[in-house]
């Protein structure tokens, strides 16, 4: 399999993870496309250094979160990213009520502090405390206490918007 083919399959498999993370850090289609492609590019560039000591998903979460947290954009920037046809900020072909609920959830997540967003994303993705600690560089004991606080905060934001 050529490296292009491999990358294509790899990105296809990881689209779900990358989409969710980018959506938590952007609020419009243009920025979303930009973040998605930046994450994909960094995955491509970093893959040769991936030592398989951690799970592929741990590595993908690390790269995606690091890129999204440090992708400091200037406010008025000319967007040069060419949009990808099948990847969108808002999923298509999705039941309206469910879509509204998902939109509300993401809108609320985006109101959390940036690090808290990372923690709640990993919690919602059902990552174990150990894996969350490996991704974030926090101690396992601290993760649990954080999650309860952030969950309460998120629920309060959702109730406030509802």
């Amino acid at each position, binding site marked *: 399999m050529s490296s*292009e083919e491999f990358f294509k399959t790899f990105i*296809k498999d990881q689209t779900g993870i990358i989409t969710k993370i980018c959506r938590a850090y952007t609020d419009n289609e243009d920025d979303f496309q930009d973040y998605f492609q930046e994450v994909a590019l960094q995955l491509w560039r970093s893959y040769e250094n991936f030592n398989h000591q951690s799970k592929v998903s741990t*590595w993908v979460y*690390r790269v995606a979160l690091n*890129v999204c947290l440090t992708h400091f954009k200037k406010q008025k920037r000319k967007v040069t990213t060419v949009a990808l046809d099948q990847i969108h900020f808002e*999923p298509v072909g999705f039941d309206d009520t469910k879509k509204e*609920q998902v939109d*509300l959830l993401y809108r609320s997540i985006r109101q959390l502090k940036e690090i808290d967003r990372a923690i709640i994303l990993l919690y919602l993705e059902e990552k174990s405390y150990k894996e969350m600690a490996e991704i974030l560089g926090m101690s396992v004991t*601290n993760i649990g206490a954080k999650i309860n606080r952030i969950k309460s905060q998120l629920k309060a934001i959702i109730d406030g918007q509802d």
Partner: protein
Amino acid sequence: MGKINIEEVWKNQPNEKADLRDEEINNIRVRKSEGFLEKLQKNARLENALNISVSIIVTVGLLIAQKWLSALLSAALFLILIFYYYQLYKELWRLRPTADVHEFLKILTSKMKSFIQRYYIGLIFIMPLSMGFGFWLASGDEVDWDKYTSPGGIGIILAAVILSFGLAYFMVELMYGRTYKKLRKLLNELDQQEETNNE
């Protein structure tokens, strides 16, 4: 909309698998990154190009003026700069966002700090040295100390130093200030979370 169960809503969103076209894959691979690491690499390249240009101009100027020792010192400085930037660029190029979030933020913050410190070292040592060197060259073999120690001379030197400091401070703030503050804020958020729970 009523109360929603966040775990349930999250689980019910479609888990997308996008089949990217070859053209799209290629666009991603050759896209010009606008990431933070690339910004650091770009700035290092620009600094290097500027330093090399200035060193060449100064060295050639000194050779034309037949100031052999000064030309030799300038050429040595030129080589040191090339070596330094080569090492710096190699180090920046090796950086990838694959470490855990805390470690990655720590590395970036420390890199930014060293970039900023380098500017200030340049500001405090290299700028007065360059100015002194410039005065020495302009004075020829005989330095007219009376000219530089007169109130007017001191005033001009002070104004030049303050202006250089102000300009350099403005440049550092413009290039790295905001980003450095954002990085520190993110790192503090993570560190505070650890500290709060350790108390």
